[in-house]
């Protein structure tokens, strides 16, 4: 067996391959994205990006009912979108094994909330594995496929950012050949969830949970590691690693399947200790169930529900030990992320700010329009929310204030769940303006293909959704196509459409600067002519990383290595100080 270093996400992809999966489907979302990006190396698996998580899961359900093993992946908030099919899939069960990977993001490294997906396992009555490193991520993925078929249920595999994005040592094995071949099989009593069928299956689901609970008490993935015998700890997932780091002498019950819990195993373990900890990130998910069994534990009375754990935080929160932290003093300026040089979103937010627009924003790179100096985003809730929220807030404002409302959404997010909001805008005669920042890629998660990009996950060419025709088809009369590098035009179009007392859509045309195939001949970078620059700082208001204020010179300086020559800064300069390199 070959030893190699894999991230949790790479290990999950490998696990699906070794388990003989034939289909994989997902919508990108940090920290889950790299699973599908890695699975394309396995040509035996049909892998694809879906426009949203609900569609991804439905594609998965179809493939499972057809008899194939299928992997569906998403980030934690993606399960909110896919929850509708999920809860009923729990009733129908599967044909080919179906594993749903959900990657949580404790600490909100790249997310809008910190929800704990383990609650979904209990809520939807779907068993859930939780690996503690890449080795377990691979092994549990394979196990999850077997369990799915054995117990006729979808199975969750829950990762977190520190599992998905950590590399550790794994051993690879060959792909399983002992799997059933897909074929059509009619079984309406199982697959048609009319009340008469579903009512019966609910009993099956409840029995399934009892069976799983009893079965899991005897499985090696729920294991006891003996220590000095004085203190007991119940833990799972990444928290297990922090327990081993900070409480090396404790006896540990490491839980591999977090729902349903192995209750008898927990009872037997707990009976041996006067001091018993439950150490878990986010919600007191295990703790509440253990307490409900009448067992007293130390848990969230000490450990925070908010944020991720670390070895130091476990010591700090459980034992009041002081720990060092990174230097956050004001003398060291923070370094938040910002839009790239040449990003086509920049000019739009610059003009929205000047037009004093109230911007309902959305999820993507353009959420960075919130950051100073652009500071032109007023709301951001979830994928697609910009559209419905623009409609809603317009309903309650005066005619004058209504004109300030502009929804801003990217192409991938618009197709994810924004287009439904646009139908509502038209149908219910909203007066708001919607800007679709169409950069023809799902940029924030690392530039994944989508139905506007013209390519599939495997980079094969695909038809491209025509945004303008789509907007017109749902009934938008006023659709304007805009080059966002043209600031004067951007200003004019934004102000005209904001003033219009009907629904209107503006679609920007420039592709993401980081996708070379869509960009024309590179433009020459700019430099600042020091004789012309008056030090007025107007160009600093666009927040381009290529422009730096030189405090000694009292002038702006362009870093020509990263300048893309988009010319947006040039258009903010009244003194014509920006010149193209090569001009002189």
């Amino acid at each position, binding site marked *: 067996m070959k*030893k*190699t*270093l894999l991230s949790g996400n790479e290990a999950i992809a490998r696990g699906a391959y070794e388990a003989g999966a034939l289909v994989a489907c997902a919508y990108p979302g*940090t*920290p889950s*994205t*790299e699973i599908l990006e890695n699975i394309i190396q396995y040509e035996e698996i049909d892998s694809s990006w879906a426009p949203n998580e609900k569609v991804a899961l439905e594609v998965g359900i179809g493939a499972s009912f057809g008899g194939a093993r299928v992997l569906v992946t998403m980030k934690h908030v993606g399960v909110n979108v896919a929850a509708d099919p999920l809860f009923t899939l729990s009733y129908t069960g599967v044909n080919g094994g179906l594993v749903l990977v959900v990657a949580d993001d404790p600490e909100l*490294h*790249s997310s809008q909330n910190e929800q704990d997906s383990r609650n979904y396992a209990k809520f939807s009555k779907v068993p859930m594995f939780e690996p503690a*490193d890449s080795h377990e991520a691979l092994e549990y993925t394979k196990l999850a496929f077997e369990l799915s078929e054995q117990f006729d249920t979808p199975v969750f595999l829950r990762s977190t*950012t*520190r599992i998905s*994005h*950590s*590399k*550790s*040592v794994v051993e690879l094995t060959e792909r399983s050949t002992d799997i059933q071949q897909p074929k059509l099989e009619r079984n309406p009593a199982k697959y048609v969830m009319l009340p008469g069928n579903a009512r019966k299956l609910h009993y099956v689901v409840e029995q399934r949970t009892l069976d799983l609970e009893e079965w899991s008490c005897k499985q090696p993935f729920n294991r006891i590691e003996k220590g000095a015998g004085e203190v007991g700890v119940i833990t799972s997932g990444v928290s297990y*690693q*922090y327990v*081993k*780091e*900070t409480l090396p002498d404790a006896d540990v019950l490491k839980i591999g399947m977090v729902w349903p819990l192995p209750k008898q195993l927990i009872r037997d373990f707990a009976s041996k200790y006067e001091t018993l900890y439950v150490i878990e990130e986010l919600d007191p998910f295990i703790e509440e169930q253990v307490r409900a069994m009448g067992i007293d534990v130390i848990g969230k009375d000490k450990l925070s529900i908010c944020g991720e754990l*670390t*070895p*130091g935080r476990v010591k700090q929160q459980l034992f009041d030990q002081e*720990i*060092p*932290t*990174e*230097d956050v003093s004001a*003398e*060291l*300026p*923070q*370094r*938040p*992320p*910002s*839009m*790239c040089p040449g990003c086509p979103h920049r000019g739009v937010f610059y003009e929205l700010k000047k037009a004093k627009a109230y911007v309902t924003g959305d999820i993507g*790179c353009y959420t*960075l329009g919130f*950051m*100073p*100096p652009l500071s032109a985003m007023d709301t951001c809730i979830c994928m697609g929310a910009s559209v419905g929220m623009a409609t809603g807030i317009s309903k309650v404002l005066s005619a004058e204030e209504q004109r300030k409302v502009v929804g801003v959404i990217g192409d991938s997010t618009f197709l994810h769940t924004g287009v439904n909001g646009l139908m509502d805008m038209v149908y219910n005669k909203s007066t708001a303006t919607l800007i679709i920042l169409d950069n023809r890629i799902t940029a*924030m*998660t*690392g530039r994944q293909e989508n139905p506007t990009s013209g390519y599939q996950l495997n980079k094969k060419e695909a038809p491209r959704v025509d945004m303008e025709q789509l907007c017109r088809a749902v009934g938008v009369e006023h659709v304007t196509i805009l080059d966002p590098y043209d600031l004067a035009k951007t200003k004019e179009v934004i102000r005209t459409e904001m003033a219009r007392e009907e629904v209107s859509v503006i679609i920007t045309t420039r592709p993401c600067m980081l996708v070379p195939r869509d960009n024309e001949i590179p433009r020459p970078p700019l430099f600042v002519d020091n004789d012309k620059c008056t030090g007025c*700082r107007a160009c*600093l*208001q666009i*927040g381009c*990383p290529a*422009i*730096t*204020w030189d*405090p000694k010179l009292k002038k702006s300086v362009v870093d020509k290595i990263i300048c893309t020559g988009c010319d947006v800064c040039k258009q903010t300069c009244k003194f014509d100080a920006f010149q193209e390199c090569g001009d002189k």
Partner: protein
Amino acid sequence: MSEVKNILLAGVGGQGILLASEVISEVMLMAGLDVKKNEIHGMSQRGGSVVSHVRYGEKVYSSIIPEGEVDILFSFELLETCRYLPLLRKDGQVVVNNWKISPPGVARGAQEYPENLVENIQQQFPSSKIVDGLNLALAAGNPKTVNTVLIGALSNILSFDRALWVTAMEKMIPQRLLDVNMKAFELGRGEA
């Protein structure tokens, strides 16, 4: 080697930190050790602060370095170095690229880039190695090899065979860029 050693890499998105941590981890794996490495992808890559944890030894549990137990702070930018100095052991070591990148607040003139950072680092950690990454990369023939220069400097203070570093780089770096990177690695090794 019974205890676990900890290297914290720090810098700015786009500097090649993730590739550097891949190379280091691969060396440890080939040396027959248990290795874990950890970093955050996503939003932080848009020019924000980036850190990567590498831990190695006989058996590694947490992929996050316990706070205050960093043995080597391996840093690609001066301001980012100072941010993470409190996480070092008292007898820890710093290998740092002598390079400044203005954060957004400094770039637009709202904040100042702090002064005397090199002195500050050397005062707290006298064994620090200050590496002139860009000039050595230029000498190697490509300004984009700064991260390889720095790997060279780091390799000099770790007790692993040179051959392991070479093999790891051959595995991680595309063929057409290998020669210039090998040169950068050697220059970095000479510097430290």
